[in-house]
């Protein structure tokens, strides 16, 4: 008789003991956010789709990213623990004593880079509810001792809001994942975390999740994700999409009630377009839907984000829109509102580095950008975000 996989919803601090027990239990479990628009019935059906060999010694996480299309990704505990050890080396974490949680633990990034890393290496997991309880987080940061912090770039604005100019010398590692790396904010990060090394982490849920790690000082552009971590292979396909093959990656996923196995040695898509550099590094050009033709010229929004952020230290993102001639275009959305000088500097950077076809249709701003529970920017909500202010528009 086969084991029955079960569902574990993230509830809060008390659930971390439950998560430890689940990891030691033979049965496969799915660890999902306390609240999501995915029903228990959907999850139960997805777990019921697991074959006998995936009903033990595995775990499953829910991903929907910015597409809003739910997918249950199944990983091997043995592989995930191996990845946590590799990350420990790749991120030079031997001197790190603790990791402070600011993101939902059911998010693959926090789950592997923090909870599992702490478990595998015997480090302390400092549990906070992140910016849902900012005073609690502030206490953890003030009391940090050789601590690792895992953030998404969108949290930096919240950090400023809640912590002002506070300096946290006890934080010695700051990691970013889940979106464009905040290259433009490195000076501010160095002031806030004077003893920290900063890393750009890149991957996807199907990679469970890590593919590359780059120290901030080893690159100059947000799109530079560095080299593959040991064991991982990356390649850019003929269509420009970045593919990966990883000994740590997911072994299966369930989507629309259908199980899809990922074979050993199988190449999988990252969903990003990229360019391979001569030195083995990779530069992201954007999600597959962020690379498109405009008036016959290839537009890579990842590259254009580098341009915008070379002149703008705040948050920047894009959403797609057609122009008056029905050609695909995009709107640059900033947060917080830029000054007139900021807008001029951004536009000057576009003029300097790109032909007109690569310019945005508009430059807009919003007081804040919408975020998903994972802390990532909710790209699907940008085009309908209320309260946007237009600072410049292209008349095409």
């Amino acid at each position, binding site marked *: 008789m086969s084991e029955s996989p079960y569902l574990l919803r993230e509830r809060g601090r008390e659930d971390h003991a439950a998560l430890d027990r689940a990891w030691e239990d033979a049965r496969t479990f799915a660890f999902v956010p306390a609240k999501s628009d995915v029903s228990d019935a959907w999850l139960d059906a997805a777990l019921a789709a697991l074959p006998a060999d995936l009903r033990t010694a595995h775990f499953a996480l829910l991903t929907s990213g910015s597409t809003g299309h739910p997918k249950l990704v199944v990983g091997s505990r043995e592989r995930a623990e191996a990845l946590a050890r590799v990350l420990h080396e790749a991120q030079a974490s031997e001197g790190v004593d603790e990791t402070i949680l600011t993101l939902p633990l059911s998010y693959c990034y926090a789950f592997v880079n923090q909870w599992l890393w702490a478990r595998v290496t015997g480090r302390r997991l400092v549990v906070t509810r992140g910016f849902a309880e900012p005073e609690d987080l502030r206490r953890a940061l003030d009391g940090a001792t050789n601590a690792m912090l895992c953030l998404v770039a969108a949290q930096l604005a919240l950090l400023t809001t809640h912590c002002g100019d506070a300096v946290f010398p006890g934080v010695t590692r700051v990691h970013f994942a889940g979106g464009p790396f905040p290259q433009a904010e490195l000076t501010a990060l160095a002031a806030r975390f004077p003893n920290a090394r900063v890393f750009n982490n890149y991957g996807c849920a199907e990679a469970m999740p890590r593919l590359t790690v780059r120290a901030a000082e080893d690159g100059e552009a947000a799109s530079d994700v560095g080299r593959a971590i040991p064991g991982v292979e990356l390649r850019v396909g003929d269509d420009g999409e970045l593919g990966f093959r990883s000994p740590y990656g997911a072994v299966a996923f369930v989507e629309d009630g259908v199980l899809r196995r990922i074979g050993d040695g199988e190449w999988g898509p990252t969903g990003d377009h990229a360019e391979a550099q001569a030195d083995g590094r990779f530069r992201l050009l954007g999600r597959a839907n962020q690379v498109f033709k405009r008036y016959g010229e290839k537009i890579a929004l990842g590259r254009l984000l580098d341009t915008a952020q070379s002149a703008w230290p705040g948050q920047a993102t894009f959403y797609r829109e057609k122009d008056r001639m029905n050609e695909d275009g995009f709107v640059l959305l900033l947060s917080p509102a830029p000054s007139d000088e900021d807008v001029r500097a951004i536009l000057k950077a*576009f003029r300097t580095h790109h032909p007109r076809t690569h310019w945005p249709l508009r430059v807009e701003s919003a007081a804040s950008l919408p975020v998903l529970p994972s802390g990532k920017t909710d790209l699907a909500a940008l085009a309908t975000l209320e309260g946007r202010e237009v600072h410049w528009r292209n008349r095409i």
Partner: protein
Amino acid sequence: MSNHDKLKELLIDTFLLDESEYSLELLRENVDTWDSLGIVSMAVGVNETFGYHFTPEEATGVQSVADIIRILEANGISFDE
């Protein structure tokens, strides 16, 4: 705002010029962003600002700021300010 000032603001905005680059003597050949899409954008801007539709021949034939003023003045938009 005078029509000269409106035109200056429009062209700086359309071609992303530095203010110091702009002059009545400015030539299209000296502006890298005054390309084919720039011509369309400039024509749309002229229509929005002055209510005048360039014909395709006028829009593509414009070689300078002075040309734009000449066409607009010929169509009843005064720059005698």
